[in-house]
């Protein structure tokens, strides 16, 4: 089977699109939580082919974007400490903190390495025994298990110079916070695909049950999203709210138990700071006591200085789904991918970047 092109076939898409148009009667607003879905939606122009009844809004599911400036400043302050090597996923480099960015401190001489996996970071620690190697633990439930695995491997191999700055975020708690705020009214949620591959579909049940909002887990191909929207519309039209999976090839209801066990072994829930949303209880992960010696925040004296937000940037509002990039006066003018002011323009999964690169509401 051709796993990608099968999900991009235009004749199948055409059928689904007309089915959606036939089915949709009730005006409904759906949020795609995940930045990966935002990219697919813009890259294939999905908003353009949906009926007028369906209003799509992007959510906070971009791990780079939701990292608070205060946390980013900690990473930058860490990189300035002599003999520390910062290892991070690439996108983080360009995100402006309160006063600088990792890219900037790297140019000033700090050792900042881009890695593709936590195991690379661990290898750098092994190869540089006279330095301290800090991995920036950014990401959702998707990356946390691999970071847990790296810590367990550091224990096993006796690597004493490896640390993690745990800025992990958990998805279900932020959705709860978003819905509780009442700022944005939703009639359906496109649940993240990769996150659900780890945690399964059960953790979304509360949304359908307590808030009466239909939930469908989606894959990342255009046909996945169309199928997901079709399933959400069916629930809306039938007055139902359930959790369904439109991404059976990637997600089982129970998730990936092994990855979950790894994560639970090393981490425990903690409050976390979200850009635009402030502190949300139990929405982050901190190292359990047994693994605290790997905690970069405890191991080093970090002095990030006062935090400030870029003037005029509305990334926080965009992440909550209450405003769109088009509402931002910096968007496409002062804030462009070459010179990003807010994180949503930096990350390839950020809403502003997707709007800018693929033309947003552009028709033509």
């Amino acid at each position, binding site marked *: 089977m*051709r*796993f*990608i*092109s099968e999900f*991009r*076939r*235009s004749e199948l*898409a*055409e059928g689904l*699109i007309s089915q959606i148009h036939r089915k949709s009667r009730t005006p409904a607003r759906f949020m795609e939580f*995940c*930045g*990966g879905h935002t*990219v697919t939606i*813009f*890259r*294939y*122009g*999905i*908003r*353009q*082919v949906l009926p007028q009844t369906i209003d799509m809004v992007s959510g906070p*599911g*971009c*791990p*780079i974007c939701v990292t608070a400036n205060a946390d980013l400043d900690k990473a930058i302050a860490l990189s300035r400490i002599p003999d520390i090597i910062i290892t991070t*996923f*690439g*996108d983080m480099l*360009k995100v402006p903190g309160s006063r600088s960015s990792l890219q900037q401190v790297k140019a000033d001489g700090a050792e900042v390495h*881009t*890695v*593709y*996996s936590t*195991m*690379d970071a661990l*290898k750098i620690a092994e190869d540089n025994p006279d330095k301290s190697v800090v991995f920036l633990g*950014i*990401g*959702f439930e*998707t*990356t946390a298990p691999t970071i847990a695995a790296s810590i367990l491997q550091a224990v096993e191999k006796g690597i004493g110079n490896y640390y993690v700055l745990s800025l992990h975020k958990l998805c279900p708690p932020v959705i709860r916070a978003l819905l509780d705020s009442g700022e944005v009214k939703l009639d359906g949620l496109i649940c*993240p695909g*990769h*996150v659900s591959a780890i945690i399964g579909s059960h953790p979304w049940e509360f949304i359908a049950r307590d808030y009466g909002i239909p939930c469908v887990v989606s894959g*990342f*191909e*255009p046909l996945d999203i*169309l199928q997901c929207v079709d399933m959400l519309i069916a629930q809306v039209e039938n007055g139902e709210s359930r959790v369904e999976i439109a991404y059976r090839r990637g997600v089982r209801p129970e998730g990936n138990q092994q990855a979950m066990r790894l994560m639970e072994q090393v981490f425990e829930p903690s409050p976390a700071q979200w850009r635009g949303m402030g502190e949300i209880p139990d929405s982050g992960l901190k190292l359990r006591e047994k693994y605290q010696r790997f905690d970069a925040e405890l191991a080093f004296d970090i002095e990030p200085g006062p935090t400030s937000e870029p003037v005029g940037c509305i990334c926080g509002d965009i992440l909550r789904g209450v405003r769109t990039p088009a509402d931002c006066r910096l968007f496409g003018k002062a804030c462009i*991918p*070459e010179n990003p002011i807010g994180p949503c323009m930096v990350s*390839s*999964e950020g809403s502003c970047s997707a709007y*800018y*690169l*693929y*033309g947003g509401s*552009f*028709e*033509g």
Partner: protein
Amino acid sequence: MKDKILLAHGSGGKLAHELVEKSFVKALANPLLAKLDDSAVFDFSGRLAFTTDSYVVSPIFFPGGDIGKLAVCGTVNDLAMSGAKPLYLSLSFIIEEGLPQSELEQIVDSVQKAAGEAGVEIITGDTKVVHRGSADKLFINTAGVGIIPEGIDISGDRARPGDKVILSGTIGDHGIAVISQREGMSFSTKLESDCAPLGDLVAEMVNASPNIHCLRDPTRGGLATSLNELAKQSGVSIRIEEEKISVREEVLAACEMLGFDPLHVANEGKLVAIVPDGDADKVLKAMRKNKYGKSAAIIGEVRAEKPGRVVMKTVLGASRIVDMLVGDLLPRIC
């Protein structure tokens, strides 16, 4: 110690001479190079195309090629994109000390093979060896000259509304083949780089129609960047159709995993041509006869409105902007 390149190999002394004569002159044999004068001297008449490029690819060996083949094909292709028949190249090595001599020999061997296929001669060169850490194994610079046939005027500013856009084959093969080998990345794929000299393909295209307006090889930055450059240079817009652009399933899968857009991924053996509507079929037919243009296809057309913009009709029938790549391609987190 004989099996590694030493700083002394670049010193201009005995070891350097030995390296040049044994490794380079012998392998790349031609009378102009063998003279070993300070410069190569040759006659020419007509319009000359001249270009240079530096190659710093990592890793230096990748599926389907190596830095040597790339250094020849890249420069040959830049000449060909002006419609020129590539003739001569220069070849400069900047070697990090400690490079195994066997690897250097292997690379010189690929230079020779690629030059042979492209029908060009390496007529001058240079070797420097730098301290460990000052280079990443091996950097190569090549410059090249070629002759432009009478009546050919190919330039990025000549695209006109109504012209057709032709792509010579699948996109993204080189970029994904290279990244699959990168440290810490290594995912297994049977994919090979498309690295190839396109001089003959271009000669056959020009033969089929001397009216070709633009040629470009979509290397770094991919097809998206080349099309944007052409649209801006010519002051036109370009509309392409996603369904007409062929991408291998392996490339699609890797791009999906890494969060890349195949339109931004590098190619080293592909070209995009902008051709007057009336000549498009002739050119396409000629391309399909060449092994490097077998799956050539018309992927779009040039329009007058909104100059500088590249728009793609997606497989869903919607439209979206195709922008240039900004910065590096970075794998996604989530």
